[in-house]
């Protein structure tokens, strides 16, 4: 395990430059170039904020702001996007990089590190765009926002753990690559992101505790929408879960990396 971390540190420049290259490639040959990095999330936020809040404004009790629903929605989406992107990228990571892994000897751990790095960067940009828009709309954020830092890291660890497990297995059982996107879609609608928790009938609400993403999204919503620190209980659950998944995935990754190249 420490060997992995050491080689990751040794290759830190490679990871960083790969993240940069990913950005460069994404916007190569576009006139506005890097501006799209801001425009894209801005547009996304603007659409939700302007359209949905006018339609659904009344449905979120507890805050006066007209755009309360949009803020609520964006808080959940901020968490979900990071989770969704990391899992989806990890899922096909080894298959996509198969040729490279067969030909070059380098620490394999750099591949997921690049994925996490570039997705964290995207997430930060999305967050900045979001904050900008809501400040314009008159929403104030409190110091509880600082909670987002540990939350984001926990979420990234959780997503990385799950993504790595799926990515490794997907090399051998390719059905997973097809099934996971569908499962993610369903999962999205089973997590209170678009709708508030209180529309779920009281009797079923405790089932939500079994959904790890619920703990993340509700923590994000607490912090961003209500400006309150998240519930400690939820944080403990997701923290333990993230640590467990990450350990399992690294163990699996180490065991599998020999055989992965055989079947790629």
């Amino acid at each position: 395990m420490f060997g992995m971390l050491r080689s990751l540190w040794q290759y830190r420049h490679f990871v960083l430059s790969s993240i940069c290259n990913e950005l460069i490639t994404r916007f190569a040959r576009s006139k506005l170039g890097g501006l799209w990095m801001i425009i894209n999330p801005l547009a996304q936020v603007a659409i939700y904020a302007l359209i949905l809040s006018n339609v659904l404004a009344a449905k979120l009790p507890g805050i006066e702001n007209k755009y309360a629903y949009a803020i609520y929605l964006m808080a959940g989406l901020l968490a979900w996007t990071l989770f969704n992107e990391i899992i989806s990228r990890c899922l096909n990571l080894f298959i996509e990089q198969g040729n490279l892994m067969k030909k070059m000897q380098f620490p394999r751990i750099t591949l997921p590190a690049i994925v996490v790095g570039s997705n964290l960067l995207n997430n930060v940009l999305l967050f900045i765009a979001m904050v900008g828009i809501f400040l314009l709309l008159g929403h104030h954020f409190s110091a509880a926002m600082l909670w987002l830092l540990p939350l984001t890291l926990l979420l990234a660890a959780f997503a990385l753990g799950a993504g790595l497990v799926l990515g490794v297995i997907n090399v051998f059982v390719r059905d997973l690559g097809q099934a996971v996107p569908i499962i993610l879609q369903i999962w999205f609608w089973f997590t209170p992101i678009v709708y508030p928790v209180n529309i779920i009938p009281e009797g079923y609400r405790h089932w939500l505790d079994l959904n790890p993403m619920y703990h993340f999204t509700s923590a994000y919503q607490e912090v961003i929408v209500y400006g309150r620190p998240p519930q400690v209980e939820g944080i403990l659950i997701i923290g333990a879960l993230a640590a467990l998944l990450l350990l399992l995935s690294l163990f699996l990754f180490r065991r599998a990396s020999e055989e992965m190249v055989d079947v790629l």
Partner: protein
Amino acid sequence: MTVLSVKDVGKAFRSYRSEWQRFARWFGLALKPAEEAWVLRHINFDIQPGEAIGIVGQNGAGKSTLLKIITGTLKPSEGQVQVNGRIAAILELGMGFNPELTGRQNVRHAAGLMGFSREQIDAAMPDIEAFAEIGEYFDEPVRTYSSGMQMRVAFSVATAWRPEILIVDEALSVGDAYFQHKSFARIREFREQGTTLLIVSHDRSAIQSLCDRAILLEQGAVIKDGDPEEVFDFYNALIAEKENSTVEVKKLDDGKVQTRSGTGEARVEEVVLYNSKGEVAEFVGVGEPVELHVRVKVHRPIKTLVLGYSIKDRLGQVMYGTNTWHTEQVIHKPQPGDEYLFVIAFPANFGVGSYSVQNALHDTDTHLNMNYDLRSMALVFNVINIDKKHFLGCLWNEPNISIENITQ
């Protein structure tokens, strides 16, 4: 100290009845795989610093699997590989280059992948740029490159730092002649500084001019390890081998090894070299008219009979070779019992040194279709300079030099 030591290495690709069994194994369950396909077995060799080794073998013999194990991308199923030093591989040049990035950015990326730090890359960048010689294109996106330019950049970065072991794949033969010379020169230079070369190629002359040892792989095993010329002779015989033919290896008095193969419908009975006085000769003078007499006996009915021969220098590079297909002297329908004497007369326009004759009996223009009798080192002779002015090289090509004083 050995720089690379391969000990009893084997590689099996395992398949399981269900992938779940594979996963269960990672968690410590001792399950037997349903099928094991061994592509390499009991591979043993040691390589010393500065050696240059050619790895030869037919497609599917296990060459690339062996290289991957040496590079470390594949783990051997048994045995071990010990490497002292850094390995660089010129396997697929330009693989992983991102077409949207510039040459410089790609170099940075590739060097990072090789494990170099930012400072090391910065320090080497001017050299890489200079060696690639692609001018302003270096800062243009790679998608605008020709394949030759891409190869130049890829080679430059792959060899920017001298490795202890350099693996060169077939890839090297692409690119323009100028850059090929330049890259060969760099490889030679590395070698002089102690880099070990591992070359995989079907190109006999490339291997023979660079390597001092060759390893022949066949069906996942090392079947020959030794002098490149000897190994290549064996390899060629192996390719030409048909059902009822044999490969026969004989050690000659001078330590050279003769390889003979073929189906035997016709055999070369005798090869003799005569000098200008008509005497059997082992030493001939530069430029002396000589005759090579090849006596052939037909044993079974065949449709056509072609005699081919080539003369090689001591490194096994062909100096000259042709056959009676090209000279339009094919013998049609020879009968069993027929005997032919081929008299090949030519001037020995070679440089000073030792040469060997290889002969082949086959049906058309190559021995790859039907090979009746193929023999390397059928005869060895030496060329000495008796009456010519001193010259260098392996070809006697006497010039007429005129000098004029053109001072104004």
